[in-house]
């Protein structure tokens, strides 16, 4: 029993921290700063616990909870990205007056839900984790409750997400009905191509997950929620739940559905192509940066799914590498948004960036690096992400997927170039307030450095990710 608690230590620690921070928040006055700092420390300590734990794969609680290197990698990725997302947005939160002490705590709760999703080896635990995460996210989307857009986006997200959770739950129940088990390993044994009912179940589950990663055709909520929610929340949405959604997609392909991979693959190929095309085409007409980043994230999910669609370990690896670099790029891009401030008001239209390069050369060059990286131009990190994905796609001789994917990168290059054009080529319109947001600047600097120097040792991430898929 003590041994199983040891395996569960990160989750236990996180839960206890959430409870105690919540108490501190409730019983002290003006507790936002204190709670914020404690949450940051919690994130760091949890990450430390996971790093120190062994990478041996172990199952506890009637095999429903599994700790392995795969879930550990994603947990660390989530913690680090949440750390940066949270801290770089601190000034933004204060300025927007959404500095309620619940804010960081709800983020921690959603992370706890994600932890259980990632470690689940059982449909029920998986679903519980998913719901815990989603509920926290609904609140976060509408946290700026006096703002009409924010409330609207929260409701929209809630309604659509509840629908998709419903479909997913229906899929889970079908799966149980047709295989007689809720455990992933037992399901995998029972499933085969003749089991038509289970294939229906698989489709329902896939719909639920595709919604979470906002892949086309389940992407409708993304632009509205991204635009409506406060930027700090948007950056969290754009990064963390996507990572988890993709991890779960890979996990489902790897364990429970490994025997019906062909059926699963066909659908993933379709949603991958659809996401790439829609992400590229729909972003062209956007004027709002957050909306544009929403469509761009749809496109990026499409590329990551192209790696998943290969149905091979090398493809999953490339997808994980892709999403990790995507996280770095997106955290950088959103941190840039926190610096676009004029007279205390945050600007989020592309036209506001007009001629920024003259007054704020450092911000301009950071945008340049991040945007070219998002467009996948070498020698930046984004290029290697695409290179690995398409390399594994071509390895499986899926040439048409590779060619469509790379052609959409040309289309998407157009709208990234349009932002760069606004920054560099256009005349200066407004000057932003002097930039003094240390952590956001540090985050941007870090993200640009990673993207710029990625080419020096491009197999760094691969070497880490490689070990995840050995078992």
């Amino acid at each position, binding site marked *: 029993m003590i041994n199983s608690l040891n395996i569960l230590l990160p989750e236990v620690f996180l839960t206890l921290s959430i409870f105690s921070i919540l108490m501190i928040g409730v019983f002290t006055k003006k507790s936002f700063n204190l709670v914020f700092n404690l949450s940051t420390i919690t994130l760091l300590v949890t990450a430390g616990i996971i790093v120190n734990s062994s990478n041996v794969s172990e199952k506890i609680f009637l095999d429903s909870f599994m700790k392995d290197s795969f879930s550990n990698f994603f947990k660390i990725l989530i913690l680090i990205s949440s750390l940066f997302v949270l801290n770089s947005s601190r000034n933004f939160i204060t300025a927007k007056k959404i500095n309620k002490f619940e804010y960081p705590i709800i983020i921690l709760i959603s992370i706890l839900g994600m932890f259980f999703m990632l470690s689940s080896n059982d449909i029920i635990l998986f679903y519980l984790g998913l719901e815990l995460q989603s509920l926290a996210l609904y609140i976060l989307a509408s946290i700026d409750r006096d703002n009409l857009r924010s409330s609207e986006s929260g409701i929209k997200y809630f309604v659509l997400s509840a629908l998709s959770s419903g479909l997913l739950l229906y899929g889970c129940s079908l799966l149980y009905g047709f295989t007689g088990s809720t455990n992933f390993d037992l399901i995998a044994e029972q499933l085969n191509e003749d089991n038509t009912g289970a294939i229906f179940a698989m489709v329902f589950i896939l719909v639920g997950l595709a919604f979470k990663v906002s892949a086309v055709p389940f992407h409708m909520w993304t632009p509205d929620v991204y635009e409506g929610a406060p930027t700090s929340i948007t950056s969290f949405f754009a990064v963390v739940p996507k990572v988890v959604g993709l991890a779960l997609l890979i996990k489902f392909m790897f364990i429970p559905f490994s025997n019906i991979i062909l059926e699963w693959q066909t659908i993933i190929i379709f949603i991958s192509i659809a996401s790439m095309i829609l992400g590229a085409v729909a972003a062209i007409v956007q004027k709002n940066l957050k909306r544009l980043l929403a469509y761009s994230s749809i496109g990026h999910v499409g590329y990551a799914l192209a790696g998943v669609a290969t149905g091979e370990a090398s493809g999953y690896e490339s997808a994980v590498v892709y999403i990790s670099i995507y996280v770095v790029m997106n955290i950088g891009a959103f941190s840039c948004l926190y610096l676009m401030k004029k007279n205390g008001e945050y600007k989020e239209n592309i036209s506001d960036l007009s001629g920024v390069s003259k007054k704020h050369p450092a911000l301009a060059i950071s945008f340049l690096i991040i945007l070219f990286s998002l467009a996948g131009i070498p*020698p930046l990190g984004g290029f290697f992400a695409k290179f690995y994905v398409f390399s594994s796609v071509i390895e499986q001789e899926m040439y048409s997927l590779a*060619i469509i994917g*790379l052609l959409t*990168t040309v289309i998407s290059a157009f709208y990234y170039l349009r932002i760069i054009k606004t920054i*560099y080529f256009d005349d200066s319109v407004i000057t932003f307030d002097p930039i003094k947001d240390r952590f956001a600047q540090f985050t941007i600097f870090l993200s640009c450095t990673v993207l710029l120097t990625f080419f020096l040792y491009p197999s760094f991430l691969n*070497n880490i990710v490689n070990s995840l898929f050995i078992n």
Partner: protein
Amino acid sequence: MNFPILSTLIFLPLVSAFFLFLSKEQKNNNSAIYISLFSSIATLVLSLFLWFSLDWSSSDFQFVEEQSWINDYIKFKLGVDGISILFIVLTTFITPICILSCVNSVKNRIKEFLIAILVLETLMIGVFCSLDLVIFYLFFEAGLIPMFIIIGVWGGSRRVYSAFKFFLFTLLGSVLMLVAIIAIYWLTGTTDITQIYETKIPKEYQNLLWLAFFSSFAVKTPMWPVHTWLPDAHVEAPTAGSVILAAILLKMAGYGFLRFSIPLFPVATEFFTPLVFFLSIIAIIYTSLVALMQDDMKKLIAYSSVAHMGYVTLGIFTLTKQGIEGSIFQMISHGLISAALFLCVGVVYDRLHSRQISTYGGLVNYIPKYSFLFLVFALAALGLPGTTGFLGEFLVLTGSFQKNYLVAVLATFGVVLGAAYMLWLTKRIIFGQTKNEEIKNLKDANRLEVLMLGTLAIFIVFFGFYPTPLMETFNVSVDNLILNFNQDLDNFKLVKND
């Protein structure tokens, strides 16, 4: 060779660009110019050293550097042979001239401009040094970023349109090459070209892969009908940008054909030769005619570039010794001549801010030094014997007569048309009547401009009379290229007969 001379050569401009980036903005920016000039001249000296210490009598890659890079199977591999060294020297030679030309023509944000030029130099040298397809792609594609900025920030009135067109055209061509590179990796297990030369690519894949590479190189060359980005980019780019574009960026594609398309896909090369001939002839004749009709000097020179590059592709795909040597020579020669012509346009543009031919006329009466130099370059561009322009075209035509009479005869017509538009241009600008009063007050080329243009003129005439140093450099490498090509072709044919 222990000292990584090629890496030093590649990264020297980048390092100085980095220092420039860190340095503080100053009012007159002289220090920025001195720093970049110094580093680019150091690069030039280093590349000259490389040129002379290269063993010309060997066709092997020399100064090879190898470093494990992506997952141990894609290596960071550099090396030079007789063909690539000349392009490297051309790059390092043109860059200081570009930096000098900034002094007069770039008015604002000169520090950023110099950073862009130096970064571009790094990437261009990298393209010519790389012996690995992925590295090559990396440098080839990364060059888009600084060039996009150069056109877009310091360009003319339609700069945004031109910059986008340049970027997207080139990117569209290149992504197909990326697919091909990855496909080659999975077919042969390596992207190291010296190893692929040995292992060979299966015949059934060659045509598709060749087309994918061709899509990239054809856009970059540029070949008809995907040449339309070039006139726009040239016209809108600032002088130094046009110079680099014409002198070096266009040569990447020609170099790519020699280094990749021909040795990697011999069967496909033979199969597609008629296509290349056809497109080259159209490029030569059609764009020459288009050039005749231009009112804008830069546009005229841009179209003449397309025509000259038509000779290059024609020469390369004759696959004869004369043809290929002529093409390489033509590329070097065009690098010097087009650079000089764009600089000439820049000189008068800085004074009168007009590129229209009709603005000028009778310059010879007022600015004789400039007019003399312009005449030299115009004559070199039309291929006057005694200049580099002649030898390149002559060898290409000799090569093509061995392959196909019709093509050769048509290409020869192009020479006449080339003479027509160049002479007419000279007549309208340098000679003729002065309609514009402003010309009478025009200042002649200053010392700096005479220095830049004079250096180019000296080399154009010198190598026109004495091409031996250039020809000797790539002689053995070209022999080896053709020998291997014919052997490969025979081998593949034997396999078919079995």
